[in-house]
């Protein structure tokens, strides 16, 4: 049985108290308890932790702490007691897990997992519970409350009103969050279990959302403002998304001026291969760029492709670089060449599409631009692009700055 995760958890707790743990010793103690004596892993963890705590005269570790804690202040690795309301239950991903969901108190909310072997009573959505000796840990960067065999679970009566605090989209972090946003885009669903996906945003930014098909779930209406309470914030490849399946979605009055992305100024320092005239797969909804042999990575050879113009490049302000992707209309304006011209040029020139690439590169590379768009997968999808013009006022300002202090 693999106990390295538990060993790591204990070691980290020791380290947080300034003690260098002996991982081998911890692991062998755990193995002895679990393998030889058939002790539950959670109990073994507690036993070893207690033993170490005594050895180093530490207090408040592993022992049953009954002091009530606020959810927003929980730290990974802690054993805690808290009291909260089950605001959502989600489908457990594995038979080893009895229940998953979100528990909230007035300070915040956290995801929880109840392990099947803990044999605890089933919790009901909307009810309040007191959880003693639950463990805070982290799974793929998301903080989570582990409810295990050593946890005491008691239903409590409470009518404390819960008012979730709403965070700006730009401050979202993996976990649980509530936002007030407008639905700005609806995308084609990419999975049969998916009910809806798209983009929601507020004044500070935009984020992808997903609603899975579940009983009683309804689609959000594009253009409408919603309060989304207790959405799950997930991170994948450095990008955040909101899972609204467990969330409470309440339409709200009013409108939001959704941030239209950032504007970035700099030099188009590099025009990458794959820019210029490209062929796209004609299969509905595919649109992928074909290789020179007209090969689509999904739909194989396609003879009836469509031509398109694009620039994949790098904008550089001298300190930071941004990958940019520029669509046809803007490329036509920037490079002074239309799609039809480009196609004609490619067909009449021995270099073909390379000639279009060189022509576009020579017209745009090394020039100063201001580009606006949303950043998706580390690349700005440029919606607006303009040449930066020489401003005599700026020259005057810089002369002042340089001369004012030197003389």
């Amino acid at each position: 049985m693999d106990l390295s995760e538990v060993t790591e958890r204990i070691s980290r707790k020791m380290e947080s108290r300034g003690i260098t743990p002996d991982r081998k010793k911890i692991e062998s103690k755990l193995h002895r308890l679990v393998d030889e004596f058939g002790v539950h892993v959670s109990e073994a963890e507690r036993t070893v932790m207690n033993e170490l705590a005594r050895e180093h005269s530490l207090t408040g570790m592993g022992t049953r702490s009954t002091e009530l804690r606020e959810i927003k202040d929980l730290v990974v690795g802690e054993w805690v007691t808290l009291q909260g309301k089950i605001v959502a239950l989600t489908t457990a991903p594995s038979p080893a897990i009895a229940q998953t969901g979100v528990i909230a108190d007035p300070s915040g909310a956290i995801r929880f997992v109840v392990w099947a072997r803990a044999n605890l009573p089933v919790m009901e959505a909307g009810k309040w519970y007191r959880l003693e000796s639950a463990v805070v840990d982290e799974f793929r960067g998301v903080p989570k409350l582990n409810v295990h065999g050593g946890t005491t679970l008691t239903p409590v009566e409470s009518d404390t009103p819960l008012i979730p605090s709403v965070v700006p989209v730009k401050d979202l972090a993996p976990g649980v969050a509530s936002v007030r946003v407008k639905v700005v885009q609806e995308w084609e669903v990419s999975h049969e279990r998916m009910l809806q996906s798209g983009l929601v945003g507020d004044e500070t930014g935009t984020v992808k959302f997903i609603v899975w098909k579940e009983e009683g779930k309804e689609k959000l209406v594009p253009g409408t403002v919603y309060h989304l309470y207790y959405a799950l914030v997930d991170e994948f490849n450095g990008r955040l998304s909101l899972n609204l399946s467990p969330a409470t979605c309440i339409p709200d009055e009013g409108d939001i001026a959704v941030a239209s992305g950032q504007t970035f100024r700099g030099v188009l320092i590099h025009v990458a291969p794959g820019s210029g005239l490209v062929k796209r797969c004609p299969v509905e909804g595919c649109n992928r760029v074909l290789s020179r042999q007209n090969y689509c990575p999904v739909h194989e050879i396609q003879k009836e492709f469509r031509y398109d113009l694009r620039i994949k490049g790098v904008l550089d302000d001298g300190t930071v670089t941004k990958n940019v992707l520029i669509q046809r209309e803007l490329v036509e304006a920037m490079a002074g060449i239309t799609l039809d011209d480009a196609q004609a040029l490619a067909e009449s020139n021995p270099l073909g599409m390379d000639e279009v690439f060189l022509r576009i590169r020579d017209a745009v590379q090394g020039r100063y631009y201001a580009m606006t768009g949303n950043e998706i997968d580390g690349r700005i999808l440029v919606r607006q692009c303009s040449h930066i013009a020489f401003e005599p006022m700026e020259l005057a300002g810089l002369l002042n700055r340089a001369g004012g202090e030197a003389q």
Partner: protein
Amino acid sequence: MNDRKGPGFRSGPAFEREPARRVFAAELRETRHQFRDGEDEKSPTYVLIPTGVRCNRIFIAGTLTEKERRGDQNAYYQARIADPTGLFYLMAGSYQPEAMQQIAKIEPPAFVAAVAKPGVFESQSGALRVSLRAESVIVVEKDVRDLWVLDTARATLQRVDDLGKSPDSKKAQEIYAPDPAVYRRMAYDALAQMKI
């Protein structure tokens, strides 16, 4: 933007392209410190310029005044690019085929925008010199050169304001002991040559 702690299964931070720094010819000429960040064979090399920023790549816009093809077997191009403060000496050999072809086509004098990798080498006389290996050289309009002078003056003044505020800048102060007034003057003179 991404200062969040990433999940453990990811393999380190994503690749980030080195920015192209804006430096006047007069400052680059003073540069003589080169270093490698890390022990790995693929670790990037940088030159540390006197105003305290590491450069793996630079962007220049100026007037290509002269070009010369040298060598027979291993032909390479040398080009001189003038900015308001001095000259950049750019080189493009068989390892920079794109830049070589671009330079071959240019008729001097012409306004160009160039991206280059700087390096420090010891000349036959024993002096330390900065070489520039061109990545690309493109003919541009005059306003690009004008914008570059503003851009580079702004960057130079900012670096002077930030002297001693970063580890690189502190290191540059030890090596070069830059006089802020000299670099403000450099920016001022470059700007003053432009007609309002």
